[in-house]
């Protein structure tokens, strides 16, 4: 449980920042809602 939480924490941090980076450098644009 603890291990999963830690994995999730770091994974979310990395994915989140990666998505922000992709949007910032313009590789990810026009996500519709």
């Amino acid at each position, binding site marked *: *449980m*603890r291990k999963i*939480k*830690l994995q*999730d*924490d*770091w*994974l*979310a*941090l990395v*994915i*989140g*920042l990666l*998505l*922000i980076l992709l*949007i*910032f450098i313009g590789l*990810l*644009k*026009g*996500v*519709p*809602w």
Partner: protein
Amino acid sequence: MPEIAQVSSRSRAVGFLVGMILVVALAIIAAWISKIPEIKYWGLEYVLWAVVLGLLVRNTIIELLIRKKPTLGVQERLTTAFRPELFIKTGLVLLGTSVNFYVILRLGAKGIVQALLVVITVFLVAYYVARRLGIDKKFAAVLSAGVSICGVSAAIAAGESVLADRKQVVYAVTLVVAFAIPMLVALPVVARALGMPDTVAGAWIGGNIDTTPAVAAAAQIFSDQAVEVATIVKIAQNALIGVVAFLLATYFALVVEKKSSEKPSPKVIWNRFPKFILGFMFASVLATIGVFTKDQLTVLGNLTKWLFAITFVSIGLSTAIGDFGKIGRKPLLVFLSATIYNTILTFTTAWLLFGGILPM
């Protein structure tokens, strides 16, 4: 359970794929429903539809498969794809880009004073009531964070800080969403009946309703001018997620679960601190220094919504309605009393701070 235990990696991959397709498909349907003009008018947001659809599928089709074909291990196979914690944490990192401290300062000290008053006192009232009712400290912390800050995100961040049981977090999240709906309809109507000015109504709605999309929807029902104030007041509260996560991690590490042999050290707090909050904080610093263009902020906002939508679908999909019965009515009472207190408090502070009674 031998059949289930021996799920091969290939069938696990298939389960994950099917689960993921299901989650995304339901999220798309939830988003689509929320955009139907009549539904949008009533402010019934995508978060609600996502939970409802998830619950519906889990408690009908999946439940039926579990009962009729237990050897298939449907739930076990699919749950690898239902990872609400991972989705919401990623969503929260992105949500950080919506917290721009310059925007918060636009309201002057008023927004910050109200946010601090609301978050601190509502948290303490809810925590006190919860403990008086005999709810354990972890669940009390999750409920209090949910009702005092910004609902769903805060409940999850708090749940991570205190290592709460997942069912408790899901229950708190469901309460947040369930409470937001009547408030969303009632607050604009009451505000109009009382003849509140736009800024006062905005501050009341922003400080009182828990989930961020519901705040925007309720303020929208009142007036366009109310939306700006309501949203900024809400963002000011959202900005406190990191602080509360840190304080809870510290309190639980050093006081509640302190082992007699353990010396209070930064390492103990660090171990418990939800690391993704660092991403949330970093993202809000980036937004504050103006790194993103308007278009990029829109994309970030949309992506956050998608992540939240799949989170709520996953929450619904992993919740058997029968689980709720075991938790009982006490959390509901905590939410109810804290919400009544919050309504009166923010009504007063909104008039005092935003109605020009107290010069600030």
